């Protein structure tokens, strides 16, 4: 599954980083603590969060995530969008609450990666 396949599923829009829309989605992770994501998310994960700070993009780059979904209609900070564009990391924004986003990803076949606990 590619990042672009998630757009309809999650009813989300691409805030920035469209260059990465063909990234392969290998798994999923949900957390709002960035230190936790740095420690436990895996390469190729879709990350669901309500944090929208510029550090989100830095973490996504560091862990080589497939994309970030900012849930709950939270506004992305301009600096986060700027960095996502620069890094080519898709920053997706969904009006759906994080719970619903994760549920839809699961139904679409995305799973937590083994060892991500």
């Amino acid at each position, binding site marked *: 599954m590619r990042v672009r396949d998630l757009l309809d599923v999650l009813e989300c829009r691409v805030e920035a980083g469209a260059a990465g829309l063909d990234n392969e989605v290998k798994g999923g992770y949900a957390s709002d*603590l*960035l*230190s936790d994501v740095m420690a436990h998310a895996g390469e190729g994960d879709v990350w669901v969060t309500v944090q929208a*700070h*510029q550090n989100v993009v830095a*973490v996504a780059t560091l862990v080589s995530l497939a994309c970030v979904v900012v849930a709950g209609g939270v506004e992305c900070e301009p600096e986060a969008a700027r960095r996502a564009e620069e890094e080519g990391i898709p920053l997706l924004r969904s009006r759906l609450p994080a719970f619903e986003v994760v549920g839809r990803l699961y139904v679409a076949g995305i799973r937590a990666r083994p060892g991500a606990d």
Partner: protein
Amino acid sequence: MLVEVYLADLHVHTALSPCAEAEMTPPAIVTAAAERGVRILGICDHNSAENAIAVAEVGEAAGVAVMVGMEVQTREDVHVLTFFGDPGALFKWQEEVYASLPDIDNDEQRFGEELILDSRGAVRGRLRRLLLSSASMGIDHVGRRVRQLGGLVVPAHVDRPSFSLIRNLGFIPPGLQPDAVEVSPRTGAARARDLFPQIAGLPVIVSSDAHRLDDIRGHTGFLLERPSFDEVRLALASTGGREIVPA
């Protein structure tokens, strides 16, 4: 220039913070500080500064300098200490923080009282709004705005598992340039530097985050000419012969 070591506890709550004990009145806080040799207090209630001036008034009479400020909870659930040398700037900042907080009434049964006190410790009123919420402003805005208003920005208890800049956002955001970072006494400055390479190059202060009188302690020493906001700012920047020293 004559400098000497002043013991400081820059993170003390008053009974305005719902999670603090009712014993945290201005006179009691100053007395506890003076008894333990603390000569600089930072008063930082959650998202509010309603009691800071009352503590400063008591402190002035007792020879305890008070840095007035507040502990802001940002959009990212990060706690940041903000200090001001000038009450005008402090209350301008408080207005902006209030405007940025969700309008939720405090439930005293559940969260505790939010008491506004005078310098004798008498109750002047209660805050209606719940202070234990996140402001809608992000940490980068807080940093920029407080600096504009002439204040100091110190991310609080960065070593802790919650409400910590490092826990919540992973590392110090580029461009934030805090004046210092605060760590808990349990971790201490030296161990914090080992545990969190993210704070390399930043001044570290240790404070109590006291919510009860017993916890007030001078965990940080400042080498200063006199105990004032401007001198502490110099010490944090390690300039003019002022510096942070072991307590």
